[in-house]
């Protein structure tokens, strides 16, 4: 074997590995899902007890006139001792009727509803929260604070299901299961509804089993007073992911963060691709900043027993680096195709067999975890990876069916079969990267032609997962070019329906 052959062989092995690395994020995800089955035994329920601390519900509000009244009314009907519950709305210099609505509620419920107003606002949620926290920490009434968003609706038993975990003094904070609550028919709402089963109900149970939490949901985070004081009495204002920073710092201080999956909170999420893109870009940039800020945490179990775990680190980075993994996979497949088409095919087939197994397991399990949401998002569950990827999964499962389809198309279009196979193969090899471009086009269309049906159609083709990857990639670009951190508020319309 001469040197050139050896180099080419080594190069081919490297390319094959790069393709197969594309399966790692799904495998990590599948391992996380496997842990959920242990949650019935490895949980925090053996440490709960009746516990009703004096809770201040902190609601940041900026032009939330459409939702704030109903939110406050609903909070006052929670199953919780009335003398131990206080709703504090921090009005962030709203210019709509928010101040009037909140002042009216405060007048009708003296001592139970408090209206705080910032005369100069618009700096973002963390600044608004800090205004309220400073007020709450200035006296000793508050024993715990529930941080939420103005649009979220708590089921009546949700707060007391969360506070029962505070009976354990090692718990610093508790979060709940946020569900997409508008139940709208918009494609994006349905995708988000399904996504939240995987990202909240499933992933956070798995994190409970691992003993580490990635993020307290922004609309449902209950902190004991001690924990807030240990955090310096304020929420981080330097990143766009203040919830994640709070979560990490809480655990770094040696406190536990617990997810209570039976405390349900309904939230209104973006209904169109443009609004979703803005929200997720903020999250993606925040997560990149958190990754850098806590760089001494990852894979250092001795130093950080909770956050330094291997599985936690792998799951964090598999999401953060997924766009790069997908681009590397596609590029490697195309180069392999030029060097050794049969090896390229084997690598591609191996990757998609793994994808098939993990996709079927995760999708079937997710739909059963929350059947009420699952029933109305079945289509979005199967098309989460997109129509093209779903077709590749079916073709991987039933190659004869794929071959028959190619024959039919070849006949209908009167195209030479070999040429058609070559085109389909190259398209399939490119798709891991190409799907993100199509997803990005969905956002471009949504911004330029609001209301266009093309945007959601492109999401169905490319996949909601591809859309999230494209946003993450955009997050890299924004961070690399040092783009200004801006707080793009998600507009809420009060569509949340209590079910």
């Amino acid at each position, binding site marked *: 074997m001469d040197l050139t052959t050896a180099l080419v062989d080594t190069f081919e092995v490297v390319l094959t590995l790069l393709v197969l690395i594309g399966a790692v994020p799904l495998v990590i995800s599948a391992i996380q*899902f496997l842990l959920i*089955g*242990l949650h019935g035994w490895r949980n925090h329920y053996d440490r709960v007890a009746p516990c009703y601390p004096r809770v201040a519900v902190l609601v940041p509000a900026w032009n939330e006139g459409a939702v704030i009244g109903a939110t406050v009314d609903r909070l006052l009907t929670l199953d919780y001792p009335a003398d131990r519950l206080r709703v504090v709305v921090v009005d962030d210099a709203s210019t709509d009727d928010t101040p009037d609505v909140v002042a009216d509620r405060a007048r009708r419920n003296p001592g139970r509803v408090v209206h705080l107003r910032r005369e100069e606002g618009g700096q973002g949620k963390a600044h608004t929260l800090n205004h309220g926290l400073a007020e709450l920490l200035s006296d000793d009434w508050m024993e715990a604070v529930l941080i939420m968003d103005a649009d979220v609706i708590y089921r009546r038993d949700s707060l007391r299901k969360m506070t*029962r975990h505070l009976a*354990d003094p090692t718990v610093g904070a508790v979060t709940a299961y946020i569900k997409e609550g508008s139940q709208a028919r918009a494609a994006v709402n349905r995708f988000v509804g399904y996504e939240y089963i995987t990202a909240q109900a499933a992933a956070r149970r798995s994190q409970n089993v691992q003993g580490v939490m990635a993020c307290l949901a922004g609309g449902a985070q209950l902190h004991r007073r001690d924990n807030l004081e240990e955090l310096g009495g304020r929420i981080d204002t330097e990143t766009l992911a203040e919830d994640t920073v709070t979560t990490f710092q809480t655990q770094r201080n040696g406190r536990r963060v617990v997810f209570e999956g039976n405390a349900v909170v309904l939230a209104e999420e973006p209904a169109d691709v443009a609004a979703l893109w803005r929200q997720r870009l903020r999250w993606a940039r925040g997560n990149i900043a958190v990754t850098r800020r806590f760089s001494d945490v990852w894979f250092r179990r001795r130093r950080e027993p909770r956050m330094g775990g291997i599985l936690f680190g792998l799951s964090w980075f598999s999401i953060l680096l997924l766009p790069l993994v997908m681009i590397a996979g596609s590029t490697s497949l195309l180069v392999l195709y030029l060097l050794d088409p049969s090896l390229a095919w084997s690598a591609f087939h191996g990757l998609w067999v793994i994808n098939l*197994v993990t996709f*079927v397991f995760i999708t*079937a399990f997710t739909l059963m975890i929350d059947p009420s949401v699952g029933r109305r998002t079945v289509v979005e569950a199967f098309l989460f990876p997109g129509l093209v990827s779903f077709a590749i999964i079916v073709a991987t499962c039933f190659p004869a069916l794929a071959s028959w389809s190619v024959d039919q198309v070849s006949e209908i279009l009167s195209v030479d079969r070999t040429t058609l196979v070559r085109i389909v193969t190259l398209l399939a090899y490119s798709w891991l990267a190409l799907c993100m471009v199509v997803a990005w086009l969905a956002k471009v269309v949504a911004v330029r032609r609001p209301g266009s049906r093309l945007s959601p159609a492109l999401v169905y083709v490319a996949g909601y997962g591809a859309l999230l990857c494209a946003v993450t990639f955009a997050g890299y670009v924004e961070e690399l070019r040092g783009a200004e951190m801006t707080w793009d508020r998600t507009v809420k319309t009060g569509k949340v329906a209590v079910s």
Partner: protein
Amino acid sequence: MSNQIPDETIEDETIPDGERIEGIPTRTEFDAEVAADVRTERRLLAYELIALALVVALLVVRQLWLL
């Protein structure tokens, strides 16, 4: 999660039966509610096994198709 903290540190604020507060469970109701939530969590293992069984069934069908 492990039980590193002795039970006596748990802050139990059980509402006495004679002081019933609207919407707040008594100790018996509280325990029943926790038990129900634990059962909900344990049911997830069954769902997980069903999902795994679906994967196995799909792979078997695929192998039979390939034969």
